[in-house]
C-alpha cells in the first residue's frame, strides 16, 4: 500500500474513532463536530480537484457550497410548507428525501459552475483567483437581496431530511451518512486522479503545451475538473445545510471560500487525505483556540501564516514526505 493511501485511511479511521468515542460516551457534541469535519472534508476534497490536481486556484467555491445548501433548503422548506418549489415552466414538488436533494444540489452546482468556469478559464493565474472570487460575490449579493428565500436572514427548515427512513436528528446516524458520503467521494477522487482524465489534468497543470501537442485541449480538461470539483463541493453544501437545518448567504460569502481553501492548505494540497486532515485540524484549532480567547481568529491567522511560511505541503506533506505539491 502506498504511504499516502495509508495516511488517508488512518485519517478516516481517526475521524471515525472520534465519532465512536462520542457515541460511546454519549457526547453528541463530539459526534456533530465529527460530522461537520466530514462535511468540510468533502467540500475540501471537491476544491482539491481543481486547486490541487488542476492548479486552478479557485477562490469562489463558496458559490457551489452555498448553491448546494440553498438547493437543500429550498426543496426541504417547500416540502415542509406543502408548496411546490416552482410552478413554471413545470411544476416541481418539494422533497424531504436526502438522495433527491443531493442530486438536485449536485446538478445545481454543475449548472452554475459551467458558465463560471467558461468565463474564468479564459484567463489564468491571478485573474482566475479574482474572477472566481467575484462571481461568488455576485451570487452572495444576489442571495442577500433576493427576498423570496429569506434574503439576508436565510432559510430555516426544522427537521433534517431523511434517507432510508433513518432518524437523521440522531447525531450518530447523521454522522454515519456524512462519513459514508466522504468515503465514497474520496474513493471516487482516488480513481479519478489515476484515470486518463486525471493524468491529462496533471499535464494541463504542469505543461499545457505538451497536452495540446498530444491532442487534448487543456481548456476542456480544466473545465471538466472545475465542474466536477464544484459538484462535489455542492454536495457538501447540501449536507451542511442539513446539519444546521439552516442556510444563509453566509455560506456563499468569500470567507467561506477562504475557509474551504484553508482546509486544503492545512491538510496538504493535491493529497488525497489532505482535506480530511485539514478539516479536522481546522475544527480542532477552532475548538482549542476558542477556549483561549474570544478573539481566537487572531491565533488561527498566526497559525495559518506559520504553516504557509514554514510548513509547505501541510499536515499530509509533513507525514508523507516532501513532493512537489503545487507550483
Amino acid at each position, binding site marked *: 500500500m502506498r504511504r499516502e493511501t495509508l495516511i488517508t485511511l488512518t485519517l478516516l479511521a481517526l475521524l471515525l474513532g472520534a465519532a465512536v468515542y462520542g457515541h460511546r460516551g454519549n457526547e453528541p457534541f463530539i459526534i456533530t463536530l465529527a460530522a461537520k469535519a466530514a462535511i468540510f472534508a468533502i467540500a475540501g476534497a471537491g476544491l482539491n480537484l481543481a*486547486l490541487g490536481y488542476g492548479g486552478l*486556484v479557485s*477562490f469562489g467555491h463558496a458559490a457551489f457550497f452555498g448553491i448546494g445548501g440553498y438547493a437543500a433548503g429550498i426543496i426541504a422548506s417547500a416540502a415542509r410548507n406543502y408548496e411546490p418549489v416552482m410552478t413554471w415552466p413545470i411544476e416541481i414538488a418539494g422533497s424531504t428525501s436526502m438522495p433527491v436533494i443531493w442530486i438536485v444540489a449536485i446538478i445545481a452546482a454543475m449548472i452554475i459552475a459551467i458558465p463560471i468556469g467558461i*468565463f474564468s478559464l*479564459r*484567463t*489564468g*493565474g*491571478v*485573474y482566475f*483567483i*479574482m*474572477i472566481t*472570487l*467575484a*462571481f461568488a*460575490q*455576485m451570487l452572495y*449579493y*444576489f442571495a*442577500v*437581496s*433576493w*427576498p423570496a428565500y429569506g434574503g439576508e436572514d436565510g432559510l430555516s427548515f426544522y427537521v433534517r431530511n431523511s434517507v432510508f427512513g433513518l432518524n437523521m436528528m440522531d447525531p450518530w446516524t447523521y454522522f454515519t451518512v456524512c462519513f459514508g458520503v466522504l468515503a465514497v467521494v474520496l474513493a471516487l477522487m482516488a480513481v479519478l486522479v489515476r484515470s486518463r482524465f486525471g493524468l491529462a489534468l496533471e499535464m494541463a497543470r504542469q505543461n499545457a503545451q505538451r497536452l495540446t501537442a498530444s491532442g487534448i485541449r487543456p481548456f476542456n480538461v480544466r473545465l471538466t475538473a472545475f465542474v466536477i470539483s464544484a459538484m462535489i463541493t455542492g454536495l457538501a453544501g447540501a449536507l451542511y445545510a442539513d446539519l444546521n437545518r439552516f442556510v444563509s448567504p453566509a455560506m456563499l460569502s*468569500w*470567507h467561506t471560500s*477562504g475557509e474551504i*481553501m*484553508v482546509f486544503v*492548505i492545512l491538510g496538504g*494540497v493535491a493529497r488525497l487525505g489532505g482535506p480530511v486532515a485539514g478539516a479536522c485540524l481546522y475544527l480542532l484549532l477552532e475548538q482549542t483556540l476558542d477556549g483561549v480567547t474570544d*478573539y*481566537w*481568529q*487572531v491565533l*488561527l*491567522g*498566526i497559525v*495559518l*501564516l506559520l504553516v*504557509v*511560511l514554514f510548513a*509547505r505541503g501541510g499536515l499530509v506533506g509533513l507525514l508523507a514526505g516532501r513532493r512537489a505539491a*503545487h*507550483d
Partner: protein
Amino acid sequence: MSGALFAEQLLNGLQFGVMLFVMAAGLTLVFGVMGLINLAHGSLYMLGAFACAAVAAATGSFVLGLAASLAAAAIAGVLVETLIIRHLYARDHLDQVIATFALILVFTEGTRWAFGSFPLYLNLPDALSGSVSLPGGITYPLFRLLIIGVGLAIAAGLFLLVNRTRLGMRIRAGESDREMIAALGVDIGRLYTIVFALGAALAGLAGALVGSVQAVQIGMGEPVLILAFVVIVVGGIGSITGAFVGAILVGVTDTLGRFLLPQAFGLIMDASSATSVGSALASMLIYVLMALVLVFRPTGLFGKPA
C-alpha cells in the same frame, strides 16, 4: 425622474469610483511590481479608517485624523511587508492568497479586540459638512465633492509619480524586468517596501474618507477589496490608467444601476416586486460588466496581452 436627481446619482457614482481607484491603485501597483496578490489590502483600508476615527476623537481635529490614517496604514504596510509579505514574492499565488487571508483574520479580530464590535462614526468639521449648489439646480454635499477632488488629485499625482519621477521610472522598470533593475544596482527590496507602503497609505486614506461618509466598522474593507479586484480585472492588472478607467466604470455602473434598474422594472411590474428584482439585479450588474469585458479582452481593457 428629474435631471437633477440623475446628476446627483452620477456624482455619487463618480465619488464611489474615485475612492475605488485610490483602493485599486495600490493593489495594481503591488501586483504589477511584485507579482503579489494582496487580500489584506482591505484590512489596511479598515486600519486607516479606525486610525482616523480614533485620532479625530482624541484630538478633535479631522485633518489630524486623516494624517493619522495615512501614517498608520503606511507603517502597518512597512511592518507587514518586511515581516511577512517579503517572503511570499517567490511563492505561487496560492501561498500568497492563504497568507494574506490569514493576515485579514489577524487584522479583523485584532481591530475588534482593540475597538470593540460597534461601528464608530466620524464628525465632519462644520466647514466641510454643508452642501453646495451646483449649476443646474443641484445641491450636493460639500464633503462628497471634496472626496471626488481628492481622488482626482491622487490620480493625477500617481500618474505624474509613475511617469515623470525617478521612483516612477524604477517602478515601471520593476514591472518589466525585476532581475535586470536589481542587476543595475537598484535596491529592489527597498523599492518593494516603498511601493507596498505607498499602496497601503492610499488604502488607509480611502478608508478614512469613505468611513467619514458611511461608518467605521469591522470588516468594512472586504467588500471594497472585492470591488477593487473587479476594478483591476476590468482595467487590466498592473495598469494605473486601467485602474482609473475601471474604477470610474464600476463606480458609475453600480450606482446608476441601483438607481435606474428598480425604476426600469417599475414600468413593467408593480412597485414592490420591481424594487426587489431591480435591486437584486443591480447588485450583480458590475459582475456582468466584468464578464463582458473578459469575453472581449481577457486581460482587461488596458492589460498587456498575455
